[in-house]
């Protein structure tokens, strides 16, 4: 792991969430949670089931709205009413389910919802050839992935290739700043996991701020620069992976070392 500078030494975080609380009816999912994500850094969010990881990133991606608290991007405060607002501001997510249409080919999947078109007599038609070229280019140049065939349905691809297409969809928007990845390696074998982690490193080198949700501490310590530990809707600590260990993080997750609570 290359040396990681402490967050205080870095410039302004791209994303700064402060005092985020979220109540669902009488249930408190998040209470006074902060989050800082920096460009070119991978921030992992770990915690037990129900610790509030998903709720936190759903607020960041505009799917949920916080009960209280503020979000800023480059020190400008944001109000995200829905997911498209977040995408327009350069915040996108790759979901665990990947949101792929199994019967469509890789290019169609990558551009699903934002197809490239060409006009004939003023009527927009899908430009399948251009989408295929662009998909091949983005997969190759930005993710270093070459598919054997661009003509096959997504269902016939491997888990890692499907992941690559879902990531390519998010990174295609040139103004993408923050990429949230929800359990990207949960359904993958060792080889595919290694490939996906490599993709994450590639994206980090490109200067994206990456927020990674994961249950696998091995993966977290492999790619993340910082780990934010959540427990029962609170942030119980943030550690640099360089000067921590999975034992320490595990202790924070289950709440063993009470001295670990810094928030």
């Amino acid at each position: 792991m290359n040396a990681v500078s402490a967050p205080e030494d870095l410039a302004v975080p791209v994303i700064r969430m402060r005092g985020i609380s979220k109540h669902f009816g009488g249930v408190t999912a998040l209470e006074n949670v902060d989050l800082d994500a920096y460009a070119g850094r991978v921030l992992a969010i770990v915690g037990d089931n129900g610790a509030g990881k998903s709720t936190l990133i759903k607020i960041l991606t505009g799917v949920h709205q916080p009960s209280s608290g503020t979000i800023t991007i480059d020190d400008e405060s944001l109000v995200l009413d829905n997911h498209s607002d977040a995408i327009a501001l350069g915040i996108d997510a790759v979901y665990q389910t990947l949101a792929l249409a199994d019967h469509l080919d890789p290019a169609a999947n990558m551009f699903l919802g934002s197809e490239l078109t060409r006009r004939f007599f003023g009527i927009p038609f899908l430009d399948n050839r251009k989408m295929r070229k662009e998909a091949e280019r983005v997969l190759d140049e930005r993710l270093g992935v070459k598919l054997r065939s661009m003509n096959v349905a997504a269902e016939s691809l491997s888990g890692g290739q499907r992941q690559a297409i879902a990531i390519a969809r998010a990174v295609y928007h040139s103004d993408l700043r923050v990429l949230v990845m929800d359990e990207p390696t949960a359904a993958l074998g060792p080889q595919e996991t290694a490939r996906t982690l490599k993709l994450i490193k590639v994206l980090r080198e490109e200067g994206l701020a990456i927020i990674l949700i994961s249950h696998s501490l091995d993966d977290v310590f492999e790619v993340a620069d910082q780990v934010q530990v959540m427990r029962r809707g609170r942030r119980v600590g943030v550690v640099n992976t360089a000067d921590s260990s999975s034992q320490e993080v595990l202790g924070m997750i289950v709440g063993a070392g009470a001295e670990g609570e810094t928030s």
Partner: protein
Amino acid sequence: MSTQESTLAAVSAGRSWQERLEPYLAIVGPLAMIAMILAFMAVVEPARYFRLSNLNIILLEAALYMPMAMAMTFVITQRGIDLSIGSVAALTGIIMAFAIKQYGFPAWVAVGMALMIGGTFGLINGLVITRFKVPDLIGTLAMDLVYRGFALVLAKGLVLARFPDLITDIGRGRISGFLPIPVLIGLITFIVGAIVLRKTWFGRYSIAIGSNPESAEMTGIAVDRYKVYAYVLMGAMAGLAGVMLTGKLNAIQATSAPYFNLHVIAAVVVGGTSLFGGRAYMLGSLAGVLLLSLMINALVTLRIEFFWQSVASGVVIILSVGLYTWLQKKDRDGSKGVLASLSTPDNRKLFKLAAVLILGIVSLIVLGFVFATTTTGSG
């Protein structure tokens, strides 16, 4: 990656004939069945079946279903279904007939109205399904009753007949030396449908919605709106079929077009479009329409009673869905042949249930004969 690629290559080199065939199944399936029907008829009734006038009848029959099969391909690709098309066709036909006969509307206005009103009925179907959240099967079945009811209310028992030339041209006209006009209309709708499927947002999103509705929603596709579009297209094409039917028979009544829904669904499904969504084969649907027309005409040529047609449509649906599902099953390991799979504990219980039912029926029949009294005519 390299090891992975080599294993993939090894797998593809050893692909079975089934995997090689799979992309073409949609078109090979119906073509094989068409060939079987033609071969059968060539042996049994070649003289009457292969007459030019009979082939014309087959094409005219097929043309009527072509626009609806095109639209139904989109609806079924989205995991939807529309059971109301027969009633929509009858009701739009009757409204058009009234506009012409009662109010003296010009024919072209009435035809335009039929298409628009059909589309409006489709819009109602779509809204019932997406806004009221009525499952498509029940929603369109209920609307089928509604539309049929309105048709009966409007036309009572009347048969409206004798229409202007434009209507009969649409239904049975012929460009001399070329194809009949309805066949031309049907083929044009299919060409347009194939382009829309491949080249427009509507086509692309129809596949995405049928493939995985949650994914489609997550990528920001307006799932409900595109579903409504498909039903509007379906309604408009059913309206067109209403015009074509009226023109073909030069008459329309409230009870016309009774089995359009099953016939069209059978044609689309036999063409390889999956009822489970995401797989659309426009060319397959066209082949399916031709297949059903050939089959029904064969039944007529063989002087089999008209009512067997509905039996045939139903059997075609069941067989083709079952066959495609079976062919697409990837994992055949662990299945030790038909006999072994029939003797699983579950299946043995089902056999027992079937045996009890059959035994019950047989014993009731025996009892019926034993205690039979003299019969009286039911009339």
